[in-house]
């Protein structure tokens, strides 16, 4: 096949890669993108989007169950709902299909050439792709590696059979009766919660002493409470030894006691690792940072003309970070002056209630030697939260004690993921507590909690 030459080649069409390519296309850069799987990457196909679809369906099902149990205080009763998970999955697949087709359409509109197949580096300017039609060589001035990440496997509990990763969990045709989730990070908790709501009996096993170890205990408490209400069993400080029988997992607790947990499915969610295999990375020998490709603040690797963005560059492995890096690299290639110096990359955990964190937590700020003031506003004092029947959770604002510069904002509560943008923008604009406190927030909304938290840090909260 005829060689393709182009200005920019992007390897991987996830939220980092395709956004980079679209932006480059907008800027008039001659761009090619290569994808081995389906366009959209892990995020659209087996990550963010399908998991949120499942979570949404599980929430709706729980509501229906709640109504049918005659527990609703709203005066609504309904017949007992039934669930057909295969249909739920088909609905989810429909959405995923629309979004991935959308990505193809966006690339086309931006005049980006899409090549389907697995790419392999030949040298720092050349890549070969195994396409359906044969071997395709692509030469590019600039190459962006956006290959993403894959689930981490446990040596004692390899994937296969009953042992599944998030990918298989999002394609189950039936709700497992007994689900054991290994790893209480955000993926395990999001999926564990969804399956518990759909009727599975869920046990979550975590090696550390508490769930969601990335977040502080105060933030996690409302989630623990809700998990308890949903009947999810949590075992912390326990290590998984392997399969006991075909249908059970053996675990050891911190005090050395062994036990087994019966399981129809075992979902292993102990993290994700940068995807650095299978595309000939050894041919170009880039500097690494542990498992990740080392990059500077412009996402440049150790080789001139090669950039890396997104999960392959390590934590935080978030779609929106990858997209932001992708846009930056496209603009750098177009000759603009850019650097990745985000004050705020919001992290959202779509558990029930949802957790949002932007910037520094009180502990992280203290550890960084910053003297801080914090203001917490509980949603139980928020009118809108009451009318939504969800008073659990709070908004917390962390600011420097000396000049009130906001250095972090965290929140936990139903639907608070949508507050993450306001938090991130406040940090990016260098807001002081007074700025948030003096911005009029619409009544009655949950966002009033943000304003009140800032006011409380100033000793002037009204509703508490």
């Amino acid at each position, binding site marked *: 096949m005829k060689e393709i030459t182009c200005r920019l080649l992007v390897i991987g069409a996830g*939220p980092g890669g395709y956004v980079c390519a679209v932006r480059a296309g907008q800027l008039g850069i001659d761009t090619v993108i290569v994808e081995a799987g389906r366009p959209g990457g892990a995020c659209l196909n087996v990550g963010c989007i399908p998991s949120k679809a499942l979570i*949404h369906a599980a929430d709706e099902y729980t509501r229906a169950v709640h109504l049918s149990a005659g527990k609703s205080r709203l*005066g609504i009763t309904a017949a007992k709902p039934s*669930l057909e998970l295969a249909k739920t999955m088909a609905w*989810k697949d429909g959405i995923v299909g629309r979004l991935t087709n959308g990505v193809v359409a966006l690339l086309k509109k931006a005049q980006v050439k899409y090549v389907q197949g697995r790419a392999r580096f030949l040298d720092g300017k050349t890549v070969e792709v195994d396409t359906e039609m044969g071997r395709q060589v692509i030469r590019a001035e600039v190459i962006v590696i956006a290959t993403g990440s894959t689930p981490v496997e446990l040596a004692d509990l390899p994937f296969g059979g009953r042992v599944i990763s998030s990918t298989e969990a999002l394609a189950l045709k039936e709700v497992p009766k007994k689900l054991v989730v290994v790893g209480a990070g955000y993926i395990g908790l999001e999926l564990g919660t969804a399956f518990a709501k759909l009727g599975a009996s869920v046990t979550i096993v975590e090696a550390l002493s508490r769930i969601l170890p990335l977040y502080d205990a105060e933030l996690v408490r409302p989630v623990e409470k809700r998990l308890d209400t949903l009947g999810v069993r949590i075992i912390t400080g326990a290590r998984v030894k392997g399969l006991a029988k075909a249908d059970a997992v053996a675990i050891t607790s911190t005090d050395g006691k062994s036990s087994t947990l019966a399981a129809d499915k075992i979902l292993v969610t102990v993290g994700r690792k940068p995807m650095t295999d299978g595309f000939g990375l050894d041919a170009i020998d880039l500097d690494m940072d542990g498992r990740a490709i080392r990059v500077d603040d412009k996402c440049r690797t150790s080789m001139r003309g090669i950039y890396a963005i997104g999960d392959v560059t390590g934590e935080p492995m978030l779609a929106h970070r990858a997209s932001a890096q992708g846009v930056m690299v496209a603009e750098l290639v177009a000759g603009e002056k850019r650097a990745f110096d985000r004050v705020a990359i919001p992290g959202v955990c779509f558990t029930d209630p949802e957790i949002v964190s932007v910037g520094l937590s009180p502990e992280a700020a203290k550890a960084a030697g910053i003297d801080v003031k914090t203001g917490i506003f509980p949603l139980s004092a928020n009118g809108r939260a009451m009318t939504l029947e969800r008073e659990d959770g709070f908004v917390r604002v962390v600011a420097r004690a000396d000049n009130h510069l906001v250095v972090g904002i965290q929140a936990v509560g139903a639907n608070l993921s*949508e507050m993450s943008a306001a938090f991130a923008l406040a940090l990016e604009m260098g807001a002081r507590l007074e700025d948030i406190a003096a911005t009029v927030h*619409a009544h009655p909304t949950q966002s009033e909690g943000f304003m009140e938290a800032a006011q409380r840090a100033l000793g002037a909260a009204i509703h508490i």
Partner: protein
Amino acid sequence: MASYDLIVIGTGPGGYVCAIRAAQLGLKTAVVEKRATHGGTCLNVGCIPSKALLHASELYEEASHSFARMGIGIGIGKPKLDLAAMLKFKDEGVDGNVKGVDFLLKKNKVDSHRGTGRITAPGHVEVTAEDGIVTTLDTKAIVIATGSDVARLRGIDIDEKRIVSSTGALALDKVPGKLLVVGAGVIGLELGSVWRRLGSQVTVVEFFDRIVPGIDLDVAKNFQRILAKQGMVFKLASKVTAIDTSGKILKASVEPAAGGTAETIEADVALIAIGRVPYTDGLGLDAVGVKLDDKRRIVTDAHFATNAPGIYAIGDVIAGPMLAHKAEDEGVAVAEIIAGKAGHVNYDVIPNVVYTYPELASVGRTEEDLKAAGTAYNVGKFPFTANGRAKVNMTTDGFVKVLADAKTDRVLGVHILGPDAGNMIAEAAVAMEFGASSEDIARTCHAHPTLTEAVKEAALAVEKRAIHM
């Protein structure tokens, strides 16, 4: 005789917030409230009870319609409604909120006087309790926060049974078969939505040739289209001239706003929601010479002072949008001014939310405002159909629209028609308080997958560089 630094008349969101802030600043403060409970219109018969019913009716509608596609079957037929239980849920929500205000006032050591307040002279307030006992209070400053009342239509009596105001519409004892809503503003559309979801056939009559006057016209048109698709019927540029209550069914005479042949619309219940008027009855404003404007609003200067010494006014009773959060901010500002600090409200950035489905939230200028002012501007729009979270939530109606100055890129207005718009508008309000450019919003990392990504994309679209469109 009790003597105070500050007496606040009215304990709606403007009044009680003002009193609490004043007490925090060390002023000896009292409130006077005519109602049996604190919280004013907002907590008792406004924002809070309507949101409780909007939430409950939304769940009811959702249970009726949207489960099937997600593989959730729900027995035979539709879910059942126990309206009395739903209204009880609403009342409990109100109760929780007003008790909260009682608690906050007590906690801040604000004295509460129950009865109708009248200003006899600057520095003197007379409170007449329901049993006729009169107490006289002395004070250095007075803040009038008496709010507003339902605007009435000439010749139509509101009996709160068949012809209702928002108050009655929050407490109907059965779902009306046919509901006539007079006025396509916030209140009419929210309560119209509640009853439509619960089973009413709803017709909305509006005097202007558009719904939600004051909202960006392009947004309003799309909003109307979505509401119509849900089954709400609109008769624009029309007025209700009379309602015949003699029969079992109400017969409303509706004619074109410009005049012409009348037609009759039948209804079981008619909701009059043509707006609200400032409430100053019995306050004794004539006696102390407090000036009112032509719309009977109290005239104040930029520091909320009336022309009478030591008398201030805030909230619905003065000029500006009748919104709880505007009143609250004025309450805080006036408390700070009275305490000798520099209180201030930025009227350019007051968000406005309609809690229908989809929600409509806006802050700042509309396209019409900018055209009238001769400001050159750029528009960035992004539809929720292209947002992943909206897709999985099956809530793809609507869009985000960002208006930015053509020369400086400063954000001049943000309008969101879509799910959860009320919470999302906070980002836009903070951005505008900082004088953000559309590029500032566009370059802020927005979490994926959230609806807020649509705000970022709309900001990107201002410079024609949206990614997902």
